[in-house]
């Protein structure tokens, strides 16, 4: 079976409060290979900002216990991402806080 050629999607990311302190910036655009999910995004984050992943996904802990990721997609009501396997779509606006 041929796997489809990965195509990049772009998500827009905002950092709020102490998360912005961790990144040193407040927003950026990130390209991900399709299909992408929250876990992949955290991999990218961890590369850029070592120590980022454990804040949202503590080792052996519960995903997003003391932090949260809000997703706004296509003019629909926003929702919180509570599962690292949550698929991401091109154009998603993700707010980490």
């Amino acid at each position: 079976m041929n796997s489809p050629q990965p195509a990049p999607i772009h998500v827009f990311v905002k950092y709020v409060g102490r998360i912005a302190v961790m990144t040193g910036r407040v927003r950026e655009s990130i390209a991900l290979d399709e299909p992408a999910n929250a876990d992949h995004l955290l991999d990218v984050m961890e590369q850029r900002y070592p120590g980022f992943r454990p804040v949202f996904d503590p080792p052996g802990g519960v995903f997003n216990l003391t932090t949260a990721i809000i997703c706004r997609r296509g003019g629909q009501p926003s929702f919180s991402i509570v599962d690292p396997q949550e698929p991401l779509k091109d154009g998603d606006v993700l707010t980490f806080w």
Partner: protein
Amino acid sequence: MSWHGWAGRVLRVDLATGRISTEELSMQKARDFIGCRGLNVAYLYDEVGPEVGPFDQGNKLIFGAGPLEGTPIGMGRVSVLTKHPNRFLGEGGAGGHWSAELKFAGYDLVIVENKAERPVWLLIVDDKVELRDASHLWGRDTKEKHAIVREETGIAGIHVASVGMAGENLAANAKVQFTLDHSGGKGCGTIMGDKKLAAVAVKGSGMVSVAHGDRFLAAYRNFHKTFDLNTTRDAFVPSWSFNSANMLLELFNENGWVHAHNAQMGLFEPMLNDVEYMDKYVVRPESSFCCPLPACGRRYEIKEGLFAGTTGDEREVGFAQAAPIVGIHSYPHVIKFRDMCNRAGLDEDQAMYSIAWAMECYERGVINRSDTDGMELRFGDADAFLTMTDKIIRREGFGDILALGVAEAAKRIGKGSERFALSIKGKELERMPQRNGYQMALGLAVSEGGPDHTRWYPPYPPNPKTIPADMDLPFDPFKAFKTRSPDDKGRLVRWLYDSRAIVESLPSCVYMIRAMLGIDFRPWLELFNSCTGENGDLDDFIQKGTRIVNLERAYIVREGFRRADDTIPRRMLEEPVKEHNIPPIGDNLEIMKDDYYQVRGWDKETAIPKEETLLGLGLGNVVEDFKRRGIWESTEEGGHE
């Protein structure tokens, strides 16, 4: 009988005669209503009936501390209460140090009666209490008043509550302004101005007694863990500790909660950024009495450029949220706006929602330059926003109309403009979402004090994974916290109201209701019992909150408020948040109100507490009062809006 926690004394000041007296606090009242917000309403209910108009001699202004004030739990919280110009409870809390000083001076409450003929100010230094001439203070802004009082008394650590020009000029919702830019009490500044009481300054040197010191210390350390950056399990705490409500800018925007352009839009770009604020304007921390957060309160300063030299203190208000409401993007302008409101004791919500209403009316052609003193009044015009704020403070031209409050202004202008006047019970809205937060919509609608989120805040659950499975909650957390469903909102909002009434009566700061402290009240009970020496159980403790809210409801019922007054602006009921595809609330509000009144034991048709409900809470005096006045027989339908 020796008091622990409570000082046990009430200070009465009659402005008409100059008579100053102290009396013993009623122990029964203290046990039933705790203190601060609760005790205030207990006294106001007994002493200011419906025959007294807000601007009559007989209206009173009450400043309340509580039993835990002066301990590190109190955080300087004061509750100010009066009969609001619109006749509901003009109540508001403020932080700082004023209230702690009042306790150290040995008083639980200060009740101000009647009116002075000429401006006076009140000085309280322990047992030395005196009224002084305030002709040199009148007309000055609040910061000048504080500085003059400090200089005149020579007491560096004195804390001052004062009224600004908005109160002196009787703007509808003027607030009382405390040292360090703490403020509260919508309408209390108006009544304080009407009574010609310029300021109340207080400094105390006594002790707040604690019944069981070891238990109190252990309970405090346990409480403190929620706010310790190393041990907190609440996502809000680390960010709130430094950015306070400015961190909410993006969160409100992302969730469709902002009231951009008078709540015509739920998304605003570019939203002001809290990090930019921190970097350019924040100078150092400045906190309330014993606040455990490092810097929920900060000193700001505009160092250069527009409005350079403007400085002050800010904390929970997230004042940058003013920006989307009137459509502006400039930090210097919102900072200047904040400073103008603080100096004048003008309610920010009144100013911003009134001006936003005027901007919408102008853009829709309902009003034009002939109404606005020749000004273009369009969303996004930051200079016009400040100019109009100043006109409200001075009651000049169109500002004189806006100073009446947005509901009254819309009545005067008419031509359908009432539809854009965002108010509840005649008081301007505050920056709380409704269409995407049904618990908040209900909370705002049923408030006895006009729109006031501190009465039910926070309305979110702790992470459900942290709730112990065996915990017995009075609502279903999985249903009740669903934001766009009316399910189980009655029980949730009842719980939020009752429990927050306790915290505001101890008092403590509502921003301390984080993590499990929002749903588990055993830690609060232990703090209360160990401090005061009381030994009631949890049910008894929660019932005190229920009793306070029922008495507050009884107060506004006696003033003629009914079910029809418990509502939210038409915009929230009828218009969607287009940018986030969130529908209007529609009939769901009435469904939730049915539910709420039923779980409260209030009559569904009228929102009047039933006799058995009041008797069950030990409010027999209210039952007698209601019978004497024929409240249950009356066919009044409210309609104060």
